[in-house]
């Protein structure tokens, strides 16, 4: 389906750019304060547009590039981009309960994560949000972690086969499972997909991606696996220790906070 794109004051897409740049030129000739104080209303409008833009771009769960933000929303307001982003992030947090985080330090790409802990009752209210891929994702993440943070693609398919998920067969819920796991999840940065050298036939390995570490944690995934087994997470001592160490590392105050950097 085509992406829903809100029309911004900057105009839908780059077709408007020529017009705006010419008006810019005339403004410059008048020597009017383009970089000067903009009205509160204009700023409000820009922040609102930015919030809308981020929400819609997040639909596909593909990290949002800073260049896209600058091109489609910010435009002339480039000089105050950090402030606009900060205001938009605040609004997203207070109104929607979402946190705007940079995927990796200095990557200049952003994602939205939920700040609210999921509640049992939410599951009933949540309607059809498209394909329920989170279940499959969690299973794969669990597999990867429990097998030592990396797993071969062939092992994944061996496992999923018993759940009726095949790389080559169309699936009732997931459509093309191979594409989902090796392409979509990778594009969304939940997984990393790398070729293993010297394998014949060629095999790939799957690991956690940066988004996974932001949206969930080793401890949470371990608890999910434990819940399925109806056992205690401590029943897997090595994995439990690893998860515990990860929790401690997270609890330590980070030197570069998750807030959007300028």
């Amino acid at each position: 389906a085509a992406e829903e794109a809100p029309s911004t004051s900057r105009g839908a897409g780059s077709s408007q750019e020529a017009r705006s740049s010419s008006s810019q030129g005339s403004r410059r000739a008048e020597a009017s304060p383009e970089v000067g104080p903009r009205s509160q209303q204009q700023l409000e409008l820009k922040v609102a547009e930015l919030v809308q833009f981020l929400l819609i771009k997040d639909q596909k769960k593909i990290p949002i590039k800073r260049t896209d933000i600058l091109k489609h929303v910010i435009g002339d307001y480039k000089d105050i981009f950090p402030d606009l982003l900060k205001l938009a992030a605040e609004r997203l947090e207070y109104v929607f309960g979402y946190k705007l985080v940079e995927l990796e330090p200095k990557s200049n790409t952003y994602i939205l994560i939920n700040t609210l802990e999921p509640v049992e009752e939410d599951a009933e209210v949540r309607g059809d949000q498209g394909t329920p891929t989170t279940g499959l994702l969690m299973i794969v993440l669990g597999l990867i972690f429990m097998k030592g943070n990396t797993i071969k693609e062939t092992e994944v398919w061996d496992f999923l086969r018993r759940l009726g998920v095949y790389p080559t067969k169309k699936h009732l819920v997931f459509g093309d499972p191979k594409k989902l796991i090796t392409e979509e999840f990778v594009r969304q940065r939940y997984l990393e997909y790398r070729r293993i050298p010297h394998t014949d036939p060629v095999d790939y390995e799957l690991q956690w991606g940066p988004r996974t570490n932001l949206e969930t944690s080793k401890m949470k995934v371990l608890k999910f696996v434990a819940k399925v087994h109806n056992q205690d997470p401590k029943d897997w001592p090595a994995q439990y220790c690893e998860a515990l160490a990860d929790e401690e590392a997270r609890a330590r105050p980070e030197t570069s906070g998750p807030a959007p950097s300028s």
Partner: protein
Amino acid sequence: MKVGVALGAGGCSDDLSYGEASIDPSLLGLAGDEEKCRKIRKKYRQLIYNVQQNRDDLVNTVSDSLTLALEEADVLFDGVSRTREAALDAQFLVLASDLGKEKAKQLNCDMSFFNQVAFCDFLFIFVGLNWMEEEHEELSGFDDNIVLSFWDTVQKEASSWILQAETFHFIFGSFKSKPAPRPRLEHLKKALKMEENGDMPAKLRKLDLSNNQETTEKEVERILGLLQTYFQKYPDTPVSYFEFVIDPNSFSRTVENIFYVSFIIRDGF
């Protein structure tokens, strides 16, 4: 690296002396050397091939075949004197070290063994699927509904362990931006159609109107008939207007009913 028969490097050795032989000594040495090197290369390639083929066995923590392969390469290396063979040796080493890494990783995992087959079974139990039926080896053997409910249940549980932001959608959808040239094309198409069906609109219009009037009159009369029948049956009870006109299942029908009844009211029956 042992310097074997130095003749191979292109220089002349003073150790060998072939006396009055017609063959050039350097050439002879070269040929013998060449044969040796070819053998070494062949052995290396054989070793690499074996290692690749028996990869699973080598990576197995119990077997020491990787160690044996390394020892074999060590022996081979003693005979290496040229870059070609050394390159093969290096290739083997890279392969062996990758396998060694895998082997080591397996050792780690053995500590807290995670049984993925059991994980699978537990998933079914977690969802509540009866696993008694032997005929269904795997989930795809089951009904579509069961498959859907399986993934639904897993989804619900999984969602509580991950902080995913809900995908944002406008409730009533949004305007999809249409590219500029399209309206022009549509306009052209419409203009063409109009020209072709020049006669049609006039005819249809006439028909339409008459059709409408008939329908209205017919409906009004029908409703009047209904009301009269009702009053013949129950002469003393008045009819509630709302109960009469409202169709609880259809808003448009209700509006139509109100419209027709208004004629009756206007005409004062």
